[in-house]
């Protein structure tokens, strides 16, 4: 049915250092319709299936959106989930990309992955079962069985499916026994996802939280043939334990045995069925912060409290020691560009979620940084908290490091890369709507040239929108922040390829140039990310109505209803 194929080219398969690669998603035989994602690169997060704050027309003009991940748990409010009903609807009988259609992504431009959970959500949850994962929906906790997950992936046909992982979200710290169990379950659930062939239908779906494991509960069902499983990424399990991490990697590589040999044929190992690895930092950081301060003798050489990032890098390298270096590594839960750079340098990660940058748009921050650092290197923040009164009369564009091509204030220097986002480089629409006797022939006004870049939206305007609860502020910032992060990764790749070229034929990991630019970046931009903390506080102060979804705080302030308090000095 689906003709897509995913490949990862890594000219220099470095195990633990900076890597330049290319993810190619081929659709059908036509290579021209491939989606190409240069790495290191970004993955955009979604909420309830939508890129936060962006309408579909804005999604289409945001070039930074190439890989989009959809946590599926919000759809598990209903059984079967609505995207599954949609994919099975007769109108989609010959639609190879029903999930793209349902969520409004363009299959010629967007690589769409699904994960069961929002990978950065570390709220406490009831414990998982041997064959049931707890997920979060608006209607509370739901249980998801591995066979169900496999069926959903095969029916919805995303481009990539993230395997279920038994990541504990109960009371940390976790015992060695708990982590051993987590590793075993994660491997078993991966095997369920990789198993080809028919799946019993209708699905044995657990109704209650305390439901029996699916294998026991399911009576014999007529099996239904489904499209093959999309490419699978697996989370590197084992959390804070070096031995557990190594054990999980080993379980991927060990020859299949027992009933798995026939069930998973022609695979010889689980790893053969895996297209890439994911690393969810949020649960790892949460578990690390719950560890007692003294490192256990078996832990990494560096204690988590001394140098948390080095400790995390050591844990991740433990997972990657034995695994083939040629597969893409996807990291979720980063919180700063500094952290991204270090994971590129010390672990060799390839794709990073943009969630922190998207979150910055939620709280009124316009990102303003670039790699490599240009101009004077005085310490500065990575963005602007546009709630701040200092922006009241600032008619400049959002970012100095990545300026708008056409601003009302100053023109960018020739040769500087400019921000292509909908806020910094607005353009007349290629075709505007007409509604009846208002076409150019009637009005006498020609269509505007869509190539013409219009003046950028300004900091002062967004400052105003934030203080008046106008949602447009977040739409502009969301588009911009994704563009800044995308340009940052383009800069990273530029330095890496320059350094690879500089070291004649040498491996990229020798790259002194990259290390030098990382140091310069760390000196130039305050790694404490204080601007985000400050903006978060301002965001809460301007409107404290929270907890009922993203929109509720915005709807309180309708047209003609009251006025926000004056700027806090």
């Amino acid at each position: 049915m689906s003709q897509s194929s995913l490949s990862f080219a890594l000219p220099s398969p470095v195990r633990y250092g900076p890597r330049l690669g290319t993810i190619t998603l081929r659709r059908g035989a036509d290579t021209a319709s491939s989606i190409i994602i240069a790495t290191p690169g970004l993955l955009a997060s979604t909420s309830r299936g939508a890129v936060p704050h962006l309408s579909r027309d804005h999604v289409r003009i945001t070039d930074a959106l190439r890989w989009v991940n959809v946590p599926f748990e919000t759809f598990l409010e209903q059984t079967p989930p609505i995207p599954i009903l949609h994919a099975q609807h007769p109108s989609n009988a010959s639609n190879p990309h029903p999930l793209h259609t349902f969520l409004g992504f363009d299959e010629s431009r967007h690589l769409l992955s699904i994960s069961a959970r929002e990978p950065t959500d570390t709220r406490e949850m009831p414990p998982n079962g041997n064959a049931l994962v707890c997920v979060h929906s608006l209607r509370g906790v739901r249980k998801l069985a591995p066979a169900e997950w496999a069926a959903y992936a095969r029916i919805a046909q995303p481009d990539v499916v993230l395997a279920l992982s038994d990541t504990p979200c109960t009371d940390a710290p976790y015992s060695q026994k708990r982590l051993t169990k987590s590793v075993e379950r994660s491997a078993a659930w991966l095997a369920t996802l990789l198993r080809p062939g028919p799946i019993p239908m209708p699905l044995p779906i657990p109704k209650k939280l305390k439901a029996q494991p699916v294998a026991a509960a399911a009576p014999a069902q007529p099996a239904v043939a489904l499209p093959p499983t999309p490419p699978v990424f697996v989370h590197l399990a084992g959390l804070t334990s070096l031995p557990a991490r190594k054990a999980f990697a080993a379980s991927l590589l060990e020859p299949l045995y027992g009933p798995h040999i026939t069930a998973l044929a022609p695979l010889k190992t689980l790893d053969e069925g895996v297209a890439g690895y994911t690393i969810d930092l949020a649960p790892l950081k949460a578990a690390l912060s719950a560890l007692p301060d003294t490192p256990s003798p078996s832990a990494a050489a560096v204690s988590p409290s001394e140098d948390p990032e080095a400790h995390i890098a050591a844990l991740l390298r433990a997972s990657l020691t034995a695994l083939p270096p040629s597969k893409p590594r996807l990291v979720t839960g980063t919180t700063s560009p500094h952290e991204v750079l270090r994971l590129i340098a010390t672990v060799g990660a390839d794709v990073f979620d943009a969630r922190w940058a998207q979150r910055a748009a939620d709280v009124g921050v316009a990102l303003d940084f670039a790699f490599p650092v240009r101009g004077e290197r005085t310490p500065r923040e990575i963005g602007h908290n546009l709630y701040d009164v200092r922006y009241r009369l600032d008619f400049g564009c959002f970012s100095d490091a990545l300026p708008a091509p056409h601003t009302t204030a100053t023109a960018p220097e020739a040769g500087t890369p400019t921000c292509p986002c909908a806020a910094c480089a607005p353009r007349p629409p290629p075709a505007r709507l007409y509604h009846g006797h208002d076409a150019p022939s009637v009005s006498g006004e020609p269509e505007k040239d869509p190539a013409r870049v219009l003046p950028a939206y300004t900091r002062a305007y967004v400052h105003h929108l934030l203080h008046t609860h106008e949602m447009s502020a977040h739409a502009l910032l969301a588009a911009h922040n994704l563009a800044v992060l995308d340009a940052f990764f383009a800069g990273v790749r530029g330095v890496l390829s320059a350094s690879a070229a500089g070291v004649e034929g040498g491996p990229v990991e020798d790259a002194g140039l990259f290390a030098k630019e990382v140091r310069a970046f760390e000196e130039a931009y305050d790694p404490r990310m204080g601007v985000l903390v400050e903006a978060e506080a301002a965001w809460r102060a301007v409107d404290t109505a929270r907890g009922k979804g993203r929109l509720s705080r915005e709807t309180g302030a309708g047209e003609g209803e009251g006025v926000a308090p004056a700027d806090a000095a």
Partner: protein
Amino acid sequence: MRFEVIAKCHTTKARVARMTLAHGVTMLPTFMPVATQAAIKGLTSNQMEALGVTLILNNTYHLNLRPGLEVLSKAGGAHKFQGWDRNLLTDSGGFQLVSLSKFTVITEEGALFASPFTGEPTMLTPEESISIQHIIGADIIMQLDDVVSSLTTGSRVEEAMERSVRWLDRCIVQHESSGKKDNQNLFAIVQGGLDPSLRDRCLDAMIARRDGVAGYAIGGLSGGEEKDVFWRVIKQCADKLPEDRPRYSMGIGFAEDLLVCVALGVDMADCVFPTRTARFGVALTNDGPLNLKLSKHAKEFKPIDESCPCPTCSDMTSRAILHHLVTHETAGAHALTLHNVVFQAQVMGRAREAIIAGTFPDYLLSFFARYYGDAGYPEWCVNALRSVGVDLLEGSPNAKIVAGSGTKWEYASANP
């Protein structure tokens, strides 16, 4: 302003006009979406232009408080501030002053109110309202009027009407002396409550000042009065106002109200309803509003309206995904706002086309038949359209007629 009537309906008082302002042409009749705080909820100015909107409204009261005149003037006016280079209309600020500020006292000099920021007593005079609107820089600016609720009765209505005429004179003087007349156009606001004789006196007085005004608004309505009274006032005003000036009915947004007003001779209308209702999950359609929060839409994979050209429908965004998103994600609200803005524009655009083609009465018949279906026609619409020669019951004498406003809604507890 250049205002040219280019077609008239052979039966009703409806007309098509080309209005040329400093920021381009707007074809009338038109509906103006409201960007209270210099933004249409969740959208950008570019998106609004892509939707085919050529005239929006900003609220002077709000912009005066935030971002304030210093910011607007340094930005080079509200157009530049919000990145909108199409036409813009601002109200006088008086209506919001009365409805949002508890302590407003109207004196002959102006409206005295407590500053929402400092609590200091502050006076908004007609001259000052015009000066503020000059700084904002809208293509159409409104006189400061003495606003009373349409439910007010007695001598206060007459006093307000007469004061509105005196304030119009002061606004005209202020506007004439400003040097802004080439780019900005002052509209008068006809007052007089629900009393036909007061309305008549106001019309006479304001028409006598026609050399100082570019257009006329019909004010003091949409405040909870009976719909059967509402349309009669609109008709009285539209009938008497000069042919060669645009007529603007303030605060009108329901599709049935728009079409009745157009049939009575109204050219422009504004309302927050289409954008506000979108945030609560309601999509406007030719079959009446759809409340996408209702679970009956959860498994509906068709779009809001297959024939709608808006970005949401042309992308085939299903009612099911909208049900999943609305009231939770801003992107869901944006999808409905895009649709509702286009729906309003389509209702008016089809009216323009029908007037030009000489089929406006047929358009009214088919629109109302589909919109109300079996629910029955609101009696006031039947009466209003009969007054201009269109009988909604023509050909279906047994059609149901309902009293009251007849506003169509998909659920009992309307939350517009």
